[in-house]
């Protein structure tokens, strides 16, 4: 189990993977390794099956989401995206974030306002994902530093999108 997640699913180690292929490979493998397949096995077999399926599920999760996949891909190339290592952010991006947050706070729970905001965030995230794909699939490692900045911005967007979700479905 020392394989990286790309190897685990027998996918080429590159950012732009075929997500349908990923889902298909995961389904094939989890069918073989799920602990239910070892319900009559020894404790050791069941333990290994739990470890293996957990690894398969974790791998699917990381590779399925572009932000997580980008972070993972960068870390395999020795580029850390941990927040502790760098706190600088683009000022324009931060200002936009603050404006959005104000709009959410001022919405007073108005679903129309929140939905409009969610649509904007989604559109921006999609544009950023496109640029990210371009940077990470280009030849060489020149794009990595810019990709790293983009990944961090996308993490912000994801968190905000999650808050918007919560605002739309009612408090927990």
């Amino acid at each position: 189990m020392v394989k990286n997640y790309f190897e685990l699913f027998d996918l080429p180690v590159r950012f732009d993977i075929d997500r349908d292929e990923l889902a298909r490979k995961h389904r094939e493998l989890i069918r073989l390794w799920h602990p239910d397949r070892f319900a009559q096995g020894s404790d050791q077999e069941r333990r290994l099956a739990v470890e293996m399926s957990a690894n398969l599920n974790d791998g699917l999760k990381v590779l399925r989401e572009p932000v997580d996949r980008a972070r993972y891909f960068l870390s395999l190339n020795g580029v850390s995206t941990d927040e502790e290592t760098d706190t600088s952010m683009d000022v324009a991006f931060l200002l936009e974030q603050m404006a959005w947050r104000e709009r959410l706070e001022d919405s007073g729970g108005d679903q129309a306002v929140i939905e409009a905001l969610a649509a904007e965030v989604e559109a921006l995230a999609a544009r950023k994902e496109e640029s990210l794909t371009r940077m990470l699939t280009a030849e060489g490692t020149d794009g990595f530093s810019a990709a790293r900045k983009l990944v961090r911005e996308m993490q912000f967007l994801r968190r905000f999108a999650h808050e918007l979700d919560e605002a739309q479905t009612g408090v927990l």
Partner: protein
Amino acid sequence: MALLQISEPGQSPLPHARRLAAGIDLGTTNSLIATVRDGQAQVLVDADGCALLPSVVRFHADGGVSVGQAAVAAEVEDPLNTIASVKRLMGRGRTEAAASPYRLMPEGEGAVRLETVAGGKTPVEVSAHVLQSLKVRAEQTLGGELAGVVITVPAYFDEPQRQATKDAARVAGLSVLRLLSEPTAAAVAYGLDRNPEGLYCVYDLGGGTFDVSLLRLSQGVFEVLATGGDGMLGGDDMDVALALLWEEQGAKVNSPSQARQLLRSARCARERLTMDTETPVEVPDIFSGCLTRAALDQVIDPLIERTLIPCRRVLKDAGVRVADINEVVLVGGATRTPRVREKVGAFFRREPLHDIDPDQVVAIGAARQADLLVGNVGATDMLLLDVIPLSLGLEIMGGLVEKIIPRNSPIPASRAQEFTTYKDGQTALAIHVVQGERDLVSDCRSLAQFSLRGIPPMVAGAARIRVTFQVDADGLLSVTARELTRGVESEITVKPSFGLSDTDIEGMLRDSIAHASGDARARVLREQQVEADRMIEAVEAAMAHDGALLIDGEREGMMACIATLKDLQKGSDPGVIRDGVAALDRASASFAARRMDMSLAKSIKGHSVAEFQ
């Protein structure tokens, strides 16, 4: 060995006789047991022809116990020793159980104990009596011992609630093949009998809990996309709301037994209003009146509205629109209520399915899965992928929670996290694991406190301790830790916040139920002997099959352990056999991991590896 000889279900490499397996729906109000016979899943009935076993247990002063109808009959005359709806107390702490109608034992932390004439009883013991009663029913009907059972739990059950359920099965002497979430079980029952493909929503309103799950069914894989619910909302709450209405209208309740009587009348009235639009209510000496369906609807509407919030959330979590859903399945007795069907139908904009008896559908699905898991020939090949319903997190500075495994992650799941020491020479570290969605530790459920000991003394920040949190297919958590700079395995002590320790459970096994069902020690011994057989068989097959993967001395080490274990097996001490199994486990662990890697490589490359060899 199963790890390599991956055979399609139904083509087991070792032909064996049909094993007895059952699915159990351990419900708040009623419990059921079902099994597959002649290819048909069917619910097993008691001597009176009843399928539903009321989940009610009465403790007598002489140590006797009545379960089911006999206990229900005593609810009013002996309310404090007759425990109903105990599922709501499973895995709960004292403060959460404070509203329960029973007397709680004052002493101690952790699991709740209910005070009865027969002494303090944990919810685990009470549930074990219900399970035991179903076990006896099944074994008498089927004429043999159950090889294993699948027990259903609400998808929304958190870790301590799942653990408590599994503990209850252990106390009742049942071997649990899997804890399966109730909606998944219901989808199995419907999915197999109907369209095999599609997106299903399962709306499950039982006596005490509400669950909603979105599942995708495709090519024999039932995958839970998202799940949500409310662990404290069900038909019982409708009864409480009705009782409150009647108290406003003048019902006088002066004792626990009268309160119980009023609640029972509420349930009966509610059930009658499934068919009728108006019903008289007569509760002798307490209340007399009339209830219309419109009045009932008004009382329960706020409760039904509460169920729609989790519905919206799961749609959001799964990224699914109402229009994408192929079918909505209703589960749980409370979904018989016309108003529930109406409002759920309006929300999902389609007529919900309810043609399988909503009380039986979960047990039937569980029975099918149990049949598959014991390896019976002819069982339908399917894989059920569940998710963790609530996020797992760790306490960090300032009483805040850092999420490590988010809700709706498919299980099994794992997450490794590195920790360091903050003081020079620090040799221990405390980790607090919680479950829930909120940011503050105090708003989440405490699962366990782990103490790591035996960290080699180093300067502050130099130690790197890798802690791995793993959630198995039943949704149960385990934690392992390793100091990375020196490779020392740290010792972990777990203090479950609400659960029972192994010692507690062994105590219960000794004291109560196991005694009634034969010799507990003999059973534990037999379990260990079976495990030793499985282990020896697996390792011998592995050596025969993959001798090429063995490294120097490994075969000799394993052979020696096998010889020792075979000797130990003849003895009568289960503890010694367990140690022997553990020794063989250690001796073969790295070989097993290498075989697994190789097998993975083979399975992913399909035939290509075989062709090269």
